[in-house]
């Protein structure tokens, strides 16, 4: 167990290092500098700025300096937000993104498993058909369409919920729902398929044949097995949720990491982009590690210490 954990942890750290390295050098070949603005800078001023941020050093020295800073937990100063460090910015943005993303994932997985189980139990009946159709259709309406519509209906026309910002719990509802919808559809389909397969297993059939109540069969025999693929999808879903969360944070003016990343990338704020990538990658790798542990718990067939690739 310890060896397995250590191995996984090491692999995650190597992945993180690879991500940092690729992004660092990618950003340095980008055209344009972080100090271009709508008003001009004189060459002297630009030279002063470059020296202040160590941009005049050789690339490898800068890289070494950055890795050293990372090891000390320092993400450096932001090139563009001159009054804040990247660490301060991210400390503000991360809770926002975690709240919205976590809530969306929970919403999608929770309701998805519920709907999927419901559909599977009524397999090929009208309820199953409608749920399956709704889930398939749900995938066809991405957040770029749904989010502006939700704002228009619930914030502007009905005035029930705020249109943007992040100050009260009510501000969380629309973004989380808009972000969750496609994944809700995805989890529903996944759960339905998985439950249908599990229902066909001999021990479940036996349990049903014995006349046990449906609820008990589902809780005791179906879900423990059927949830395995659902759990294993949580990791990739969290990674994929990112793309949507950038759109969502833009539409709802949320002060989250996605906005820092997009704005940072557009403004060539090297240190801010690096910081968000590091935090994103760390969060997602950690989440995957947690999911993996959960997965090994759930599925007794998987022996710890061995890869689960032999499936």
């Amino acid at each position, binding site marked *: 167990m310890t060896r397995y954990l250590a191995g996984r942890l090491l692999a995650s750290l190597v992945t993180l290092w690879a991500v940092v390295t690729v992004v660092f050098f990618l950003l340095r070949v980008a*055209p*344009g*500098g972080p*100090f*271009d*603005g*709508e*008003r*001009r*800078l*004189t060459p*002297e*001023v630009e030279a*002063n*700025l470059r020296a*202040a941020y160590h941009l005049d050093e050789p690339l490898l020295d800068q890289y070494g300096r950055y890795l050293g800073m990372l090891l000390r937990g320092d993400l450096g100063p932001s090139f563009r*937000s*001159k*009054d804040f460090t990247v660490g*301060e*910015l991210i400390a*503000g*943005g991360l*809770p*926002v993104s*975690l*709240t*919205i993303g*976590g*809530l*969306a994932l*929970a919403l999608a*997985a*929770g*309701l998805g*498993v*519920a709907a999927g189980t419901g559909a599977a*139990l009524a397999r090929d009946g009208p309820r199953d058909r409608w749920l399956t159709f709704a889930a398939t259709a749900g995938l066809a309406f991405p957040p770029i369409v749904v989010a*502006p519509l939700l*704002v228009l209906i619930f*914030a*502007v026309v009905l005035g029930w919920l*705020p*249109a943007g*910002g*992040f*100050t*009260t719990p009510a501000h969380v509802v629309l973004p989380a729902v808009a972000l969750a919808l496609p994944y809700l559809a995805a989890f529903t389909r996944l759960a339905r398929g998985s439950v249908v397969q599990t229902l066909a297993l001999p021990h479940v059939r036996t349990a049903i044949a014995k006349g046990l109540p*449906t*609820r008990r069969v*589902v809780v005791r025999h179906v*879900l423990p097995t059927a949830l395995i693929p659902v759990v294993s999808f949580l990791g990739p879903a969290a990674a994929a949720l990112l793309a949507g969360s950038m759109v969502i944070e*833009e539409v709802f*003016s949320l*002060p989250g990491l996605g906005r*820092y990343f997009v*704005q940072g990338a*557009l*403004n*060539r704020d090297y240190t801010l982009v690096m910081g968000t990538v590091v935090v994103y990658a760390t969060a997602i790798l950690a989440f995957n590690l947690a999911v993996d542990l959960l997965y090994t718990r759930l599925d007794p067939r998987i022996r710890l210490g061995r890869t689960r690739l032999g499936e």
Partner: protein
Amino acid sequence: MPLLLVVFFFLVCVGVGGGGGGVGGPPPPDARVLRIGNGGEPETLDPHRYNLRLEETILNDLFVGLTTFDAHGNIVPGAAERWSVSDDGLTWTFELRAEGKWSDGHPVTARDFVYAFRRLLDPRTAASLAHFMYPIANAAAVNAGEQPPEALGVRAPSERTVVVDLERPFPFFAERLIYPTGYPVPAHAIERLGDRWVKPGRMVSNGAFVLEDWQPHAHIDLRPNPHFHDIDSVALSGVRYLPTADSYAAFNRYRAGEIDAIGDFPSGEMDWVREHLADHLRLTPLVSIMYLVFNVTKPPFDDARVREALGIAIDRELLTGRVMQSDEVPSPSLVPPMVPGYTSAVTVVETRGQRLERARRLLAEAGYGSDNPLDVTLRYISGVESKRVQVAISAMWKDIGVVTTLHHTELKSHFADLRQGDFEVAQAGWFGENNPEHYLNLLVSDTGDVNYGRFASAAFDALMDRAHAQADLGRRLELLREAESVGLAEHPVTPLYAVTIRGLVNPRIGGWHANPRNVHGARYLYWK
């Protein structure tokens, strides 16, 4: 039924997911607070390091310079109660108010101004807009590190007198001083706190408001400064600036009642706004000029005939009337039409038909025709608005047989490329001061890289040089007018129109007067 279980599972998930966050914002502001959509996130609130218009808006509320503007945008006394200029136009003497105080109660003295100007031009400050103060004697040399900051032409002969010596006559200096680059900074606070002096809770300022809170990408809160010299006239109990980068999101939040004033909304919603929010709509022509710039170092744009053909094929009235639809002011002159005291000699007299005819002829003379069409790459800044304009322009060029490739990049990369001369034809814009020089300087050959097209005309430069040496305003304007005619005859740029700011302002807000600078100091605003 598995329903119970399902609900339980869902609650568990929500509990787990919701545990990650928990950012509790401050309670909703009270009714006398004004919430303004500011169009983006400031990069800094240090008046010497700022670079963006949206930072200027906030800084205007936090600080007051020697001069300032009133509710109508006119230049009025600020920290100085009066000033005088010597006959040769080179020495400006300012008398500070006796009651001027910093927000911590320290008096604002002439030494604060001397400290501030030296700090701005000290190369170690790396002030990105230091060149705003280059009219001051020795400023450029100090900023380049060739002379010590003490060599700067700013003196404090007494506690309340600031004397500024200029390099050359500059009749618009009082206007130049309303920008944050001319603001005083609290020497006593900066010496104690260093770069951290701008943090909320620590920042000391001398304007009508002080910085109370700054949550990046969420909001910036200001509250009235009890030591401000005119605090009795300040009606608002606070201002909250929101970094509304996306104009559609800002529009929605305005309509949902979450913001009281926004400076921009999507032009596609103009008809709806005119119908439903007519008393909220504020269309303000901004003193500014949008133009196309040609890179005269890149063939075929080194050929004035090609530049002229492309320029005259554009129908400005069609652009502003049909495409933009927000009352933009078409302008064949590089100087915005609302600049006072200046009448440009550059006008359009031909009909559209005649112009297209002549454009085709010019292109033919330059060697282009239907069998050999001119290929142009037109660069513009990303955004719905500028896209509409550039699409319309390329359609107009199609009429004279020109094939246009459109290429858009983000604002910052756009201007970076322009400054490096990496373009053929590009959209550009210039705004700021309400005087002709501010715009015509763009075409002077030694202006540097904001002369994006690298235009160089000895005749134009000579006329501009004579104007810059002239202390008499009337004669100065006459020389500028002559210079513009000479310069634009070579078509280095095609001026298009002055921008109109499409704002929405809650009708219950008083003191919001349209003005060409589009400045609305919060100290002048009140709830009706």
